[in-house]
């Protein structure tokens, strides 16, 4: 195991993290047992109150979505009238629901573009800024300024670039492309604007990672005759494995959750279908097909749970060290 401690979270050096491993829990549990009754009640409440909030408002609804996905409930009338229809909703999603296929394709495209364009660009900027050249702070601030803005607002700001009649791009090129309206273009327009924000975010994470890489490692590699590119790919990048995995998981989850920008543009229709907008449209819109919408929601849930598990495994393992 060669990965060093990285500033994924607070530095772990000050004190060995109290691990939950059963082999050493006996000693500390004795300390717990020494607590007075009142203290023990406080500990229980301190765990119970937040847990009730998070379980009640996030986990139980998530489970309820899964359960509803097996019913034909349309939201009208009582839940007791809903019939269990097995996997019918899922069959419908895959067979007779036209927007599903484009939505999956768009989500995948989103993921690919974030990986192939935004992530490498973010890493490149991080590596360059890490050299601490003159004006580093300016470059850094400029590049991550969009991270502060909401994606909804980014949709509006880019409208000034994209608009057919009044946008800058068309004015400069002398074209008449309706970037947000034309289904051939709008997904790319949305992706471009999202990348604008994502690059700064990836850059920030890698900058933090790079600061944690032992300088002597790089020196050693270079003394062995590796050039900078080799040093980065063979030494620095592998050593930053935890950051890499975190960026990977965040990218997947953010791509899956992509919603705001597309909803601002046209509520996810006409070339901008995404899983998140399909779920929303099926529930909030006119035709509230709850069972069906829940099936879509469950599909999203399952995909994200896979990556959340990967993420947790990685960060918790870091944690135990």
């Amino acid at each position: 195991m060669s990965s060093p401690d990285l500033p994924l979270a607070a530095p772990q050096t000050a004190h060995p993290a109290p691990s939950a491993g059963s082999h050493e829990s006996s000693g500390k549990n004795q300390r717990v047992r020494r607590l007075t009754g009142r203290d023990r009640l406080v500990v229980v409440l301190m765990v119970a109150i937040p847990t009730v909030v998070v379980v009640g408002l996030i986990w139980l609804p998530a489970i309820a979505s899964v359960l509803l996905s097996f019913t034909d409930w349309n939201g009208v009338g009582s839940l007791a009238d809903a019939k269990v229809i097995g996997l019918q909703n899922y069959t419908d999603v895959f067979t007779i629901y036209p927007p599903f296929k484009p939505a999956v394709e768009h989500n995948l495209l989103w993921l690919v573009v974030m990986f192939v364009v935004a992530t490498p660009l973010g890493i490149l900027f991080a590596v360059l800024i890490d050299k601490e050249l003159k004006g580093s702070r300016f470059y850094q601030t400029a590049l991550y300024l969009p991270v502060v803005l909401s994606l909804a607002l980014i949709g509006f700001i880019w409208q000034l670039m994209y608009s057919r009649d009044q946008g800058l791009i068309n004015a400069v090129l002398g074209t008449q492309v309706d970037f947000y309206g034309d289904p051939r273009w709008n997904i790319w327009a949305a992706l471009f604007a999202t990348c604008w924000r994502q690059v700064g975010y990836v850059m920030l994470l890698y900058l933090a990672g790079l600061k944690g890489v032992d300088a002597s490692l790089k020196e050693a590699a270079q003394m062995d005759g590796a050039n900078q590119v080799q040093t980065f790919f063979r030494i620095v990048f592998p050593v930053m494995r935890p950051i890499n995995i975190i960026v990977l998981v965040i990218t997947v989850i953010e791509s899956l959750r992509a919603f705001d920008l597309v909803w601002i543009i046209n509520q996810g229709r006409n070339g901008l279908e995404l899983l998140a907008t399909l779920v929303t449209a099926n529930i909030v819109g006119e035709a509230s097909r709850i069972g069906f919408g829940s099936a879509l929601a469950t599909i999203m849930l399952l995909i994200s749970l896979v990556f959340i598990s990967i993420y947790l495994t990685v960060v918790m393992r870091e944690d135990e060290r």
Partner: protein
Amino acid sequence: MSSSTIGGVGRRQAGAVPSAPRRTPPARVVLYVFLIVSSVLWLFPLLWAVFNSFRDYQYTQANGYASFGGFTFDNYVNAWEQGDFGRHFLNSVVITVPAVVLALLLASMVAFVVARFSFKFNLALLGLFTAANLLPPQALLIPLYRLFRAVQVPYWFSYSGSLLDSYWALIIVNTAFQTGFCAFVLSNYMKTLPYELYEAAQVDGLSVLRQWWQITLPLCRPALAALAVLEITWIYNEFFWATVLLQTGDKFPITSSLNNLKGQFFTDYNLLSAGSVLVALPVLVVFFALQKQFVSGLTLGATKG
């Protein structure tokens, strides 16, 4: 770009360009140009919005947007009035402040127990919280929507008579979602506090509640500050829940009210620019004032909900 010092080591390496001259190597010039050009390009959409927000609609109609002149403040006045920005900003404050405070409070409680005591379920508990923050909100939409609609409350509590279409719904949802992230970051931070501190406190007979409130929280001030800044921007920027859980237009926080305003602003891009700048301004002010906290907050947890 391959002949520069790395990480302040101060040793010039012979890299892909073997004989790098000592003063302003060409590779370094290329690097500077690249970074400057990128930074300016990156800032451009924002600067363009600011630039056009100060220009007169008639002027840009006559001369095109790629022109210079026609400066005015009127767009800001009009955007503020037509968009009812005063009310929407207030809505954002009413939702954001309690949600941030509650999320930090709840998270610090869980984090404290996880970091202070060693139970078998510690990791599982932390996982439960952290994972909650990463779930797609759409996956919980239906049950939460129905739940909020079903909860009847007195009219003095919410004008809609239920939690749906009330500020409470947004405060609760944002709190629940962000508690996970904060708990994860705070527990990591708290684990770095020396355990002897608590042993001493225990010997002095300090109750668990006071160990949390009087010892742990003050020591966590840097992490709490960083999280507060980050959470303020996230909850202020939150769009999805506000869009689906609110139905009355004048309750929308500023970020999601933008969508309501689209119609009015659609034809007048100078007005749209002014509106966008106004909405961006609070987060930009927070960001520039507390940049360090913002960045350290992001990298403290290295994840985003």
